[in-house]
């Protein structure tokens, strides 16, 4: 199971990558492994304003529907259109091709609430 160092993580098993005030978001390797085969992804439209901690979309496996929560507040500026036809990218490449959306970060302070890779790995190990 991978926990890339350059990412930050939430307790809801999303990852974020911060680059120049833009935050890319996806679900972690642990999350995709727990879900199993991802078969459907529902994302907000570009322009939607997300509030930290609120559900922004869903990821569905064959068996279950799971909400995905906004790791930070801000406006959605891009979504991964490829997930519509290839939701399995979340399983095969959770940290790269399986990214879900990009958010224009509203408040840097929210990043301080996120875990780094070591903390998240510990968090996952406690959850298992």
């Amino acid at each position, binding site marked *: 199971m991978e926990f890339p160092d350059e990412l930050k993580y939430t307790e809801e098993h999303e990852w974020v990558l911060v680059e120049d005030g833009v935050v890319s978001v996806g679900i972690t390797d642990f999350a995709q492994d727990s879900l*199993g*085969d991802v*078969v*459907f992804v*529902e994302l907000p439209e570009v322009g939607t304003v997300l509030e930290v901690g609120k559900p922004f979309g*869903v990821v*569905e496996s*064959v*068996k279950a*529907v799971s909400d995905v929560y906004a790791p930070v507040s801000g406006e959605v500026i891009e979504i991964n259109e490829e997930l519509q036809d290839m939701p399995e990218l979340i399983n095969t490449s959770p940290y790269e091709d399986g990214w879900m959306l990009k958010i224009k970060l509203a408040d840097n302070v929210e990043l301080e609430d996120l875990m780094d890779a070591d903390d998240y790995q510990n968090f996952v190990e406690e959850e298992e």
Partner: protein
Amino acid sequence: MLKKTPLNAVHKAARARMVDFGGWEMPVQYRGVIEEHLAVRHAAGLFDVSHMGEIKVSGPEALAFIQELTTNDASSLENGQVQYSALCYPHGGVVDDVTLYRFDAEHYLFCVNAANTDKDFAWMEEVLADGDFSGVLLHNVSDDFAQLALQGPAAEAILSRLTDRALTDIGYYRFHEGLVVGVPTIISRTGYTGEDGFELYFAPDSAEEVWKNLMDVGAEDGLVPVGLGARDTLRLEMKYALYGHELSNEITPLEAGLGWITKLDKPSFVGREALLKMKAAGVPRRLVGFAMTEPGIPRADYPVFVDGRQVGVVTSGTMSPSLRHGIGLALVETACAGIGTLLQIGIRSRKVGARIEKTPFVKK
């Protein structure tokens, strides 16, 4: 405390994901639901279904009792034959759907849904006490059996390597008693997947031996262990009912599309009066199969609309691994149950297009 099948340790060693299913700790998947599903459609899969209940009925009037207890006509059964049937309450709601095995005129075995076993047994005792059946004995023998389902086009070839029984002699919904790797086994040509295959009943202390031998000799044919996740998607593609979804105390077999196992011309059975009345008045709801025409996956309890008006509810839904789009079953008003009817499924805040299709979804 969850109940465990005799293969619990084997599943965990295979790194299966275990879940609570009706009070049993069961494998929901091993490698992945889609992979396991497709293996059953194209090669073979092995399922541990030891959680299923078994209830033995014996005695000179066993058949008379079973005729009163069940909706199907058990008098047509021959020795070595299996029948799909249902138990109803007097109001026509379903106690359980079952398979019935006839050994001889005085010995029968019911295979029942795991979570319903105690309820079914109590109900059978009640029906027995209310009637005039001399010398009928009921035994809950669920703990005496492990059960495996070997399903898929390669099932017969795989099983034939472990038994001397001529499997080609066992017809669909027939069973033989024979040895599998030396273990006395009920070899039943039945299943819940729509594929050819067998359900095997034998003593629990032989479960690991039978499982491991089957996995070993089946490897060359692509046999894989299959969890409850794929068991559900396989049965859904065939429109097979699952108790608690398509069947319940609130749903009659006529509504659930089980008129073919509801023999209203039998002189008597529990629920017959209510079902006759429902049939005469017109069955109000029908179970239909539908496919999504727009992106989305239907799930149990989602509302079903026609022209914006709610006409029913989804009973089961999934992404079909064979068809690669959303499919589901729904109970809808009879006037809206025709094949080709355009539906909308309420998925979260959206209404998503679907269409009633012929079933099974996957042609065999």
